[in-house]
């Protein structure tokens, strides 16, 4: 059974604006699926439909085997949700919020207390558990939000931009938790604006733009599909870029040089590397200041599929 399946899922708002325009999803149990797209692409609307907060206006979707429109209650019992901007009551303590969530999930008091205590410890909030959430940092709120979403051990977890606005350390801590969920076999549907996040965490990535999925696959496959490796060269002063381009043409196809680089070559074969390029340039009597092998990134994939770079793509994209 697929954990999440969508067929032609649509959501139109007043004025006929289609925020989500017929998307298909097939996500296996235990998979981490990264849903990547810029602001306004339709990520959050998709999540809101899948978690039963919003009714689709077209198509259908099932989560954990239940239809999101017809069996919303059954879906809600099987999912955990951490929506964008951890919506926590600042007047309550972490422990109180955990216990409330457990009660709303129908857990018995003793079992709820035990589970809450385990999760609070797991996300590193034991010392802060009795403090009001209003005094928590952004990272602490996000960790508490995650713990609340996990309180009833859901089979499918939705994380809507869980690290947006977090500092790198908090982001890394949250990534570790998501990786741990993979080991436990939880399906995770993760929306993000951060390419690095999708690259690091997701088994598969779906790229959404203007309400449509424009690319889907493993990060590696998408990058491979996006194009070959290329070599970027900065020559020492006095070396002729035209001669360098001509020499390196034996390794691949010249591209328009970007930024500070003098020469860019798209390599013909994956086996060709920096050593080959240095040898060719040396044979031609050209001196190199810097040379770099660049592999395609998800940003390149995004650029190719949507025609523009993703906001936030500069945040550590490798």
């Amino acid at each position, binding site marked *: 059974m697929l954990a999440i399946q969508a067929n032609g899922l649509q959501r139109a708002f007043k004025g006929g604006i289609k925020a989500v325009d017929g998307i298909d999803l097939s996500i296996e149990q235990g998979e981490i699926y990264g849903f990547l797209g810029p602001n306004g692409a339709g990520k959050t609307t998709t999540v*809101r439909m899948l*978690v*039963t*907060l*919003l*009714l689709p206006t077209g198509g259908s979707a099932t989560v954990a085997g239940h239809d999101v429109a017809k069996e919303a*209650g059954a879906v*809600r*019992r099987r999912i955990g*949700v951490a*929506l964008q*901007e951890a*919506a*926590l*009551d600042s*007047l*309550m303590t972490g422990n*109180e919020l955990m216990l*409330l*969530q457990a*009660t*709303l*999930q*129908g857990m018995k008091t003793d079992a709820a207390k035990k589970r809450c205590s385990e999760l609070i410890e797991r996300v590193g909030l034991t010392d802060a558990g009795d403090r009001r959430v209003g005094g928590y940092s952004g990272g602490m709120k996000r960790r508490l939000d995650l713990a609340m979403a996990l309180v009833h051990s859901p089979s499918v977890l939705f994380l809507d931009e869980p690290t947006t606005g977090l500092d790198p350390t908090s982001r890394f801590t949250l990534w570790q938790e998501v990786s741990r969920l993979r080991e436990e076999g939880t399906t995770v549907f993760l929306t993000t604006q951060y390419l690095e996040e999708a690259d690091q965490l997701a088994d598969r990535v779906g790229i959404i733009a203007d309400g449509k999925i424009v690319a889907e696959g493993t990060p590696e496959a998408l990058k491979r599909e996006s194009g070959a490796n290329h070599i970027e060269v900065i020559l020492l002063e006095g070396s002729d870029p035209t001669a360098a381009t001509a020499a390196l043409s034996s390794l691949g196809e010249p591209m328009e040089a970007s930024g500070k680089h003098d020469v860019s070559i798209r390599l013909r074969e994956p086996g060709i590397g920096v050593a080959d390029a240095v040898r060719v340039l040396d044979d031609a009597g050209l001196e190199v200041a810097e040379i770099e092998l660049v592999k395609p990134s998800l940003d390149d994939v995004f650029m190719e599929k949507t025609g523009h770079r993703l906001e936030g793509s500069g945040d550590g994209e490798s």
Partner: protein
Amino acid sequence: MTGASLALARRALLVTLRRPQFLAPLLIFPTLLLAVNTGGLSQATALPGFPTIDGQPPVFFDFQLAAAMSQSLLLGGVGTGIAVALELEMGFFERLVAAPIPRVSIVFGRLLAAAVIACLQLTWFVLLGVIFGAGIYDGIPGLLIVYGIGALAGIGFAGIGVTLALRAGNASTVQGFFPLVFVILFLSSAFFPEALLSSPADVIAHYNPLSYVANGMRAPIIGYGGTKAVLEGFAAAFGLAVLFAATATHALRGRLRAG
């Protein structure tokens, strides 16, 4: 539904008690008005048309206690509405909607909490009454009547607040209805008997359910109006509770449909 409603009621109570800036006005404003009215208008009992008990007018402070209680309960309704609107604004409402609970328990939890808060508000005024020498004419059974009518009316006024919050979706709009509290209050027989109101205020007061709520709570305090006033008070408060619980539930459904 009961478990979820109780859990949400407990949470609403907890948060309300931790927000003294919301709770204080529910008690301070009516207490100030009670003090001002009692200090400046006590001669009103001598006016023809003011009710008498065994030929004697009631003590004006005792008469005004029910008015202060009514005002406090109305303000409680605005407070509940603002609290719900703030939950909508900060996204906590969505967390509740995403939980596997009957969604109507989100409204019922709030209304249940409002009933408890109403009892706390009434206790404040009962204590004030005791401190300043008011006698509860019908004793403990009379107090139970005051709490019964007050709790039901508290649910009704909270239902109005929740309805407004769910329709408007923001706290400032709900707060904008605050002045209406005084219009509803002064166009009722909460502060003065209907017989002393001039037209058209007396006609409006006659149809204003708050008049019956206030008179119903007042009857066991001053011993005027008898069973009729109590039953009318219960009927009005019950009607308000049922009507506005229904409108709040309807508003919730509308909000959920709109997404």
